[in-house]
């Protein structure tokens, strides 16, 4: 895929959402569903990889870019991740005094709520790929409980990997 095409696809996702993983539904729609550039498995793996390393959650776009087109894709992902951040400079200068306007707040809050719904909708096909038996179902359920109890995502992912590896070594199917 051409660098600029990939960059603008990534930018479409990152510039229209308001949190790191909130861009995932748009990316999945473009790269998995319509263009078949990456798979659900790779998209899920990108989330795992970047939650297992330090830095912002949005870095998963770089990993997705690498899956899509190697180093050029990763560069497109990094640029698309960084570009929307510059919009804060316009906000700092011009919009800041009006950010408390009820209609502006209402619009932003509705976008955040819709992003949450879209993320749930995107998780369903990813879960079909990742949750393949009782063990993985238990990892997902217990992981959610742990995260809601403020356990760091790194530990939840490490525990899931460790449990699955131990089960595999013991001959238990996932």
């Amino acid at each position, binding site marked *: 895929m051409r660098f600029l095409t990939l960059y603008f696809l990534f930018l479409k996702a990152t510039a229209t959402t308001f949190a790191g993983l909130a861009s995932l539904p748009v990316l999945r729609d473009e790269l998995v569903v319509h263009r078949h550039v990456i798979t659900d498995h790779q998209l899920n793996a990108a989330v795992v990889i970047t939650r297992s390393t330090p830095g912002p959650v949005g870095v998963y776009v770089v990993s997705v870019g690498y899956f899509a087109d190697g180093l050029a894709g990763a560069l497109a992902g990094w640029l698309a991740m960084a570009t929307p951040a510059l919009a804060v400079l316009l906000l700092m200068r011009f919009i800041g005094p009006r950010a408390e306007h009820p209609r502006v707040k209402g619009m932003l809050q509705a976008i955040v709520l819709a992003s949450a719904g879209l993320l749930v*909708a995107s998780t369903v096909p990813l879960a079909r790929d990742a949750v393949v038996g009782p063990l993985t179902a238990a990892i997902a359920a217990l992981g959610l409980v742990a995260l809601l109890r403020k356990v760091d995502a790194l530990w939840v*992912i490490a525990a899931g990997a460790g449990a699955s590896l131990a089960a595999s070594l013991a001959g238990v199917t996932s």
Partner: protein
Amino acid sequence: MLGAPMPPARTRPAEAPRLSDLGAVFARYGNLTFGGGSATIATLREQVLVRRAWISESQFQLAYALSRLTPGTNLLAFCAAVGWTVRRGSGALVALGAASLPCSLLAVVVTRFYELGQTSASFVAALRGALAAAVALMLNTAWGLARPHVRADLGRALVIVPGAIALVTAASLSPLQVLLIAAAAGALWPARETSA
């Protein structure tokens, strides 16, 4: 604002830091913190406000609030806003690059190792568990996004969240179309105050 008590800040110095110092701080503390954006911002606040006094408390608050309103990764918007506050355009670019390039390079390296490791049975087994955990991670992120607004206005959340799911699944609209519809609805439906 970040949920944890913050230590008091020093007064702001007369001179802005050098770009190299700015870059070094954001490269070191923007890339080496686990725990998501809030944990990293708390660490950066400690460095740029409390220890080095590059910005004032009110400047920090403005940068933080506006970064939450900026599309994309809030943490990077926060870094750009602090860089702009300290050294204007060049400061924003240096802070943004320093806070995003090292962790991006690390992500590329780990992704490369992921591809190489797929032939190992142990790696595949461990990855299977990690991917299941990632499902929980995404659901938790969705809840984290919605939670402040659910608490502030449950009715609004009960319309918009399921509405977005229905529009993207049953009506087959694209996520971008759903977000635009949500934005229009939100502008017409004034929001109550949230605790976020």
